[in-house]
């Protein structure tokens, strides 16, 4: 039995000019509001013993989704089946009363989660212990630091033995020691077969903790499935927004439209060879795959073959240049076509493409033998994605080993 089943979940917020309009709407059955869909058509499942990650930009609908899961908000449409007791840390110290002591708030917090007086009494010591608040437990919570607040909240929420635990960003407030401790407790939950929904901007954490993840964007699920794949896609999206230079891909056809009489040489075509094509038209490689690009150029008869060279730069979609090489640097000449001496070509091969997950493209330059003059260039062409099997971070996979110190 799944712990959570969401089917076509949607949440609309209504905007009214005045509160009274909402009442009028109910009485007269006429629409007075503008609607804003924070979530739309969200469907997923979460099994017991599974950690489900939720990622997305600010305003993507993550908080709305978590509130629906926690039961503090009702969906506008769709169905949400929850099997078991849900306990959630959404915003810092939700429901805590600032004037009351930590201890009083423990009682109140547990009672609101539906525990009886006896059940609470049995847990109080554990909660205080885990929160490490010691004597501060008798101080009003308004005097607490944000770290103390979150420690108390986490201790309360996790002590009631929930079947489903929903954890928002909140945890990042705690110090390293408490983060480790809370992470351990969450992992223990997972091992006990409880379901966890974990929402964080720390993509590394999501990738490491969650087997499956959901990427929300503008209220709809952009991707869901294996957390590694989802996070890679989300990372591609983030880098796209953060890219340094905004270069529109230049197609080879547009190159042909330019006045070729002015150029003494120009690029005709560049294509990725033997690449697996996927549905969305972007080629996908796995880290370590063979990578081959075929580049074809044309030169004017007056130009010597030696005076035409090609440079290729692999660029990530945030503008980071990952690797660039040229035929000049490597001392290679372009190959002329047997039938047409002015048609030049070359194949650029990388035996092991050790790039990590990302969305990449090529900048191809046609240069002279001084590598100063540029005949022609194709920017951001031959888009491709790389997916890595592991969770290493960075741009490139470097061969390495670990060994015992002397």
């Amino acid at each position, binding site marked *: 039995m799944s712990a959570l089943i969401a089917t076509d979940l949607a949440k609309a917020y209504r905007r009214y000019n005045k*509160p009274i309009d909402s009442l009028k*709407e109910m009485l007269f059955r006429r629409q007075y509001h503008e609607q804003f869909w924070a979530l739309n058509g969200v469907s997923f499942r979460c099994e017991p013993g599974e950690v489900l990650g939720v990622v997305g930009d600010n305003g993507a609908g993550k908080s709305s989704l978590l509130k629906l899961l926690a039961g503090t908000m009702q969906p506008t449409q769709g169905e949400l089946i929850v099997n078991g007791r849900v306990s959630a840390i959404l915003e810092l110290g939700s429901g805590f009363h600032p004037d009351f002591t930590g201890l009083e708030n423990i009682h109140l917090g547990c009672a609101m989660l539906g525990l009886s007086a006896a059940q609470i009494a049995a847990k109080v010591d554990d909660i205080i212990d885990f929160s490490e608040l010691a004597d501060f437990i008798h101080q009003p919570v308004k005097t607490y630091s944000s770290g103390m607040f979150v420690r108390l909240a986490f201790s309360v929420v996790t002590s009631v033995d929930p079947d489903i635990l929903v954890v928002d960003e909140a945890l990042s407030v705690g110090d390293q020691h408490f983060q480790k401790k809370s992470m351990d407790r969450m992992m223990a939950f997972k091992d006990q077969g409880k379901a966890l929904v974990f929402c964080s901007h720390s993509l590394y954490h999501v990738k490491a903790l969650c087997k499956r993840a959901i990427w929300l964007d503008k209220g709809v699920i952009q991707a869901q499935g294996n957390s590694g794949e989802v996070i890679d896609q989300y990372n591609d999206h983030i880098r796209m927004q953060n890219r340094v230079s905004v270069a529109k891909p230049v197609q080879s056809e547009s190159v042909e439209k330019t006045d070729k009489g002015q150029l003494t040489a120009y690029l005709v075509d560049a294509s990725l060879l033997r690449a697996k094509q996927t549905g969305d038209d972007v080629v996908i490689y796995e880290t370590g795959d063979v990578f081959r690009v075929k580049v074809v150029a044309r030169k004017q008869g007056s130009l010597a073959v030696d005076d035409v060279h090609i440079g290729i730069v692999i660029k990530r979609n945030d503008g980071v240049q990952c690797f660039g090489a040229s035929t000049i640097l490597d001392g290679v000449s372009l190959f002329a076509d047997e039938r047409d001496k002015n048609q030049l070509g070359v194949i650029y091969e990388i035996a092991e493409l050790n790039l990590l997950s990302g969305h990449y493209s090529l900048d191809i330059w046609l240069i002279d033998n001084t590598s100063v003059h540029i005949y022609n260039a194709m920017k951001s062409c031959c888009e491709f994605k790389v997916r890595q099997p592991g969770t290493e971070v960075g741009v490139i996979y470097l061969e390495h080993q670990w060994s015992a110190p002397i």
Partner: protein
Amino acid sequence: MTIVKNVFSHTHALRLLIARDLSSRYKGTILGVFWLFLQPLMMVVVYSFVFSVIMKVRIPGMENSYHFALYLMTAMMPFFAFQDAILAASNSLFTGSSLLHKSTLPALLIPLVPMLTTVVTEIIALVIIVLATFLLLKQVSWYLLLLPVLILIRLCLSIAMGYMVATLSVFIQDLRQALGLLLTVLMFLTPILYPVSMIPAEFIPMNNLNPMYHLLDAYRAVILRGEMPDIGLVYVAGFSVAMLFFGIYFFQKTITRAKDFV
């Protein structure tokens, strides 16, 4: 029905919230809980002094000089409890907005907590009034055992009205301002400060429709007159229960909309 069950599954939370509501008023004060007793006690003393010693107000049929002060208090205290409940309910969704949005507590409990708290203050005030009546007027009777029933009816009426004003004050902000005024008007129109015998004959039928009159008169009957309350009490009881159902229905119907604005 499930709503009611949901409320009952949170009885412990309800108890803690009421305790919190009560103690928050006196938190940090030196006298603490003693304030709960001090307020009605001071009122008995001051009213008795002003009306009986200085003004020497006499109502026909009440010869003892302390009679008027107690006559006033007997009706006024339950009315104040009603007034406190209504005003607290009208503010409850604003002050409890974090509970409303961030916890899974049934929304029905949020206005209920401050309304139930008024029972505590009412009981303390009534105990003081009953003691004073016994000491000053030598008046006590078995009919006092009906007081819990009266308190229950008073509570029903308060909760019924309270649930309605709770969400209405969100939609119509003016209501929070107007409520104080409306309650003052109700207090003066109900025979609290004057006996019903002073009302001109043409207004008597109107007064008979006022549930508050029958309720407060029942308090006077059992405490001051030592007699069975008037049959009008049955009318108030029926009215309160009917309104209670409507009030809960109205609250449940409007709470999700009201949530958008607090």
